[in-house]
């Protein structure tokens, strides 16, 4: 069976999520987590010696760096595609 790129899962992700969608989704998620922490009781974040703050910090670092890598990867893929077409 020939692999159709548009039906392939990677192709689907590529076509569905343009860079801007990805960015805005990320920002919405980001603000969501930030405000959620503001509205949920601070007792939760401060329980068990504020360990959830450490968890949040690790999560922010990982999510941001991974998002950056995803964006970079997409830029490179686009460049490769353009080079192939030339």
């Amino acid at each position: 069976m020939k692999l159709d790129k548009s039906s392939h899962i990677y192709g689907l992700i590529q076509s569905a999520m343009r860079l801007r969608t990805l960015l805005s989704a990320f920002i919405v998620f980001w603000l969501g987590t930030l405000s959620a922490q503001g509205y949920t009781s601070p007792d939760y974040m401060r329980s068990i010696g504020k360990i959830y703050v450490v968890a949040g910090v690790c999560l922010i670092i990982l999510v941001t760096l991974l998002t950056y890598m995803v964006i970079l990867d997409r830029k490179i893929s686009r460049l490769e595609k353009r080079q192939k077409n030339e």
Partner: protein
Amino acid sequence: MQQTDGKTSSSLAAWKWACIAILIYVFVAGWIVPLNPGIIQVSPSKAVAGTQVNLKVEGYNSAYKSAGGEIRAWLRLSGDTVLQATQVEVIDDRNLNATFYIPSVFPLRQDAYPLALVIDHDQEGTSVLPNSIFITPASTPDSAEMHLWTTNKIAHVHKKAGIQFPFRNILAETIRNTYFHVPMWFTMIILFGVSAWYSLRYYRQGDLTDDSRSIAYVRVGLLFGLLGIVTGMLWAKNTWNAYWSWDVKQNMSAIALLIYAALMVMRSSVEDDMQKARLTAGYNMFAFVLLIPLLFIVPRMTDSLHPGNGGNPAFGGEDLDNTMRMVFYPAVIGFILLGLWISQLVFRFEQVKRHA
């Protein structure tokens, strides 16, 4: 720049593997090493001198009951001047009651006397809560009670066996942020420094490759600086009760980031490549020089809420003990390598794009 030809898989450089291994170690060790037992809170927080006080003590990570053994408690006035508890009653692992008779006279004269609570357990080690109770002076001091204050009572204190991170009042578990939040700033400074170096090289040699190198490092440095600010804000919300409290450290790091953000804006507004590169190089070196007063001098000159502040925060005091160094130094190295790695990818991408 590494040259890879077509389909053959190129192997990853050793330092990149080292970066991965170090960061895995940091995330594992930074999370699984437990904290030393500590004291979270004490009630009541106020008492009058010359009365008996029954202190309810809430411990953290403590095993007062299950560890068994002898527990001693003191209230410390200053230095070695202490008052020993007349009775210590263990309720469970996390709670105990300590009874003190507060003498009506004090060896030194103040309006109020903040006392630190010291608890020593023969297996759990010693824990301290500064300013745990405030004593107001008695109306009729009785100088005969002066002998209750002693200077040689805290002896033979114990240390818990095994590896723990120190328990610091207020910080508690967030002392682990030393391995995640602090290396962001170290990485940012190193990346901006490398960038300034390439700017200098561009100034001397006029090679546009150096310009794209320096701008790749600025971009990733900004990313790490932003991470430093945001992780700091999350911590501040749960410690200082506000994401932004206009603390000198917050302000100065925000200014530093804005200076570099302005560099990116300025760069995009210039059309000509050579002119863009020249302007960037000059601005970039200037910006790096500005980082030194903004991040290292001004915050040391005023009071800051930030942990490690007051005096010289560099690697000092009880905020960073030898156990923490075993994780902190690898964390700094690991995140710096990661920053260099990402910058290198950005640079390589820009090169390919330019020559495509």
